[in-house]
């Protein structure tokens, strides 16, 4: 079996549905996939990149997506550069990825060759014969230091798509994510391998503009982090789209955000998926409840789950191959990838409580900020919240919260609402977990990967 000819994304997406009916939509341009059978977005013949390690470094998603379609099966390795990669990290990415050529819309890096790419398909004869089992390399942003280069294959990236999630020809997929990150790439591949189209987001658009554009293209399946969705729920443009499938991933989906989305889209399938760049997609939960059923752990199937010392470990064909550059990959002796995501078993269900590294210690008692946020977010006046530690001379630290409310309160009303939210927390949380103080803020910072920015 392994001696089979390599296949490619181009070949698979061509087989998935008629190209002339399928589109990649972006804020700048719309490209019909059929154009790629008669032309190319790359400024050089594919054979010049055959067997090479290629860094795709485009500013916008559309040229990057087109280059990816063209180069899978041709290049030995494709390193997908996210748009926010700091220039200072580029040399180490190029060295670690053993990059021979940069495909991009700006020549920012010194590597062997620079080949321009664009969103424009120029008529050209291209031999799209696959000769390589291309390694796909994604960059995970560490909060400090150089990014890690995580290696996958088209196969490992698409294992979760074998009929478990709604695919289907004619689907129009979209995501708030950039498609060069794991979460965005999952949606891109679902669109391409499932015979659908895709609406790409744009860094230059507001949330409202993006939602309106996705709605205008008839989006049917859309995904984002809970933070993305909390922002979207603040936009009046949310109702310009009517998706059949709404997906959350990348952060803990608490009950409040699931309930809000259920109210906003009463007829849609709403699922929250668990995935990480290293571990791949583990599962999607579609019952509308936070957490996941305990029986997912230890059940036979394509994805093996374990809980060890409170953290979720995953072994599946979706696991990354490893990191490039000789960095140790976080898997145990049985091949399970430790996600660092902490879970707790309650009433037959595992709840996600937070990241291993994010624990706040209050006089010896531990708190995950995420579980406090989940409690705060259930208050009907709250849109979103960020819980953090504040140094304290009595207990070492206390929990404090920044809260975004749906309609701003001032003066006496604000004090009353703070008291109400604290009361609400005291009803469900142990007392050391209840915030000592609450600040109302206009907005919370959401990082480039769509996750709430947590500063140490």
């Amino acid at each position: 079996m392994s001696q089979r000819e390599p296949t490619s994304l181009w070949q698979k997406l061509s087989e998935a549905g008629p190209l002339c009916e399928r589109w990649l939509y972006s804020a700048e341009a719309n490209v019909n996939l059929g154009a790629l059978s008669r032309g190319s977005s790359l400024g050089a013949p594919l054979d010049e990149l055959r067997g090479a390690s290629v860094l795709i470094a485009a500013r916008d998603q559309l040229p990057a997506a087109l280059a990816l379609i063209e180069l899978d099966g041709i290049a030995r390795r494709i390193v997908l550069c996210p748009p926010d990669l700091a220039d200072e990290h580029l040399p180490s990415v190029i060295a670690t990825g053993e990059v021979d050529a940069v495909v991009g819309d700006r020549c920012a890096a010194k590597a062997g060759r620079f080949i321009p790419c664009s969103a424009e398909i120029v008529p050209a004869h291209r031999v799209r014969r696959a000769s390589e089992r291309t390694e796909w390399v994604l960059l995970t942003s560490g909060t400090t230091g150089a990014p890690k280069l995580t290696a996958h294959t088209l196969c490992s990236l698409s294992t979760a798509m074998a009929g478990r999630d709604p695919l289907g020809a004619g689907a129009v997929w979209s995501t708030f994510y950039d498609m060069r990150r794991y979460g965005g790439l999952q949606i891109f591949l679902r669109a391409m391998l499932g015979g659908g189209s895709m609406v790409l987001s744009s860094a230059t658009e507001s949330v409202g503009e993006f939602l309106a554009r996705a709605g205008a293209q008839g989006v049917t399946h859309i995904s984002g982090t809970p933070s993305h969705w909390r922002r979207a729920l603040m936009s009046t443009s949310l109702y310009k789209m009517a998706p059949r499938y709404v997906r959350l991933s990348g952060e803990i989906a608490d009950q409040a955000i699931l309930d809000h989305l259920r109210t906003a889209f009463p007829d849609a399938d709403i699922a929250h998926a668990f995935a990480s760049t290293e571990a791949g997609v583990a599962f999607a939960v579609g019952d509308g409840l936070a957490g996941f059923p305990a029986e997912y752990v230890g059940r036979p199937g394509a994805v093996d789950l374990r809980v060890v010392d409170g953290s979720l470990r995953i072994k599946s064909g979706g696991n990354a191959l490893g990191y490039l550059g000789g960095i140790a990959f976080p898997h145990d002796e049985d091949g399970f990838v430790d996600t660092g995501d902490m879970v707790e078993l309650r009433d037959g269900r595992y709840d996600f409580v937070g990241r291993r590294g994010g624990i706040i210690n209050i006089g010896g008692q531990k708190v995950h900020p995420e579980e406090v946020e989940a409690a705060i977010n259930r208050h009907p006046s709250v849109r979103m919240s960020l819980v953090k530690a504040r140094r304290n001379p009595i207990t070492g630290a206390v929990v404090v919260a920044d809260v975004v409310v749906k309609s701003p309160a001032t003066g006496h009303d604000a004090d009353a609402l703070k008291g109400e939210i604290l009361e609400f927390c005291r009803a469900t949380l142990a007392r050391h977990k209840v915030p000592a103080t609450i600040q109302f803020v206009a907005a919370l910072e959401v990082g480039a990967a769509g996750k709430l920015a947590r500063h140490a």
Partner: protein
Amino acid sequence: MLARSEIVAVVEQVAAEQSKALAPLTDQLGLLETGLDSLCFAIIVARLEDRLGFDPFNAAEDTDFPVTVGDFIRLYEQASSGDVAA
């Protein structure tokens, strides 16, 4: 500057929220005899820090840890008046 009455109001509010029976607050009363536990004091310090903009325990290195209610109130009164003077 923070008035004694404001400090006492925060102490009383936290005691009520935490369902603690607060002893009558006199300057001589030991902090441990107030009926409040360390988490209550941690919350009080955090709330006063919001009002004051800083935490006097942290601001002065040679601060003696307050033992009585009077010590505690004086720490905040002095810290906040020093703040105004600076």
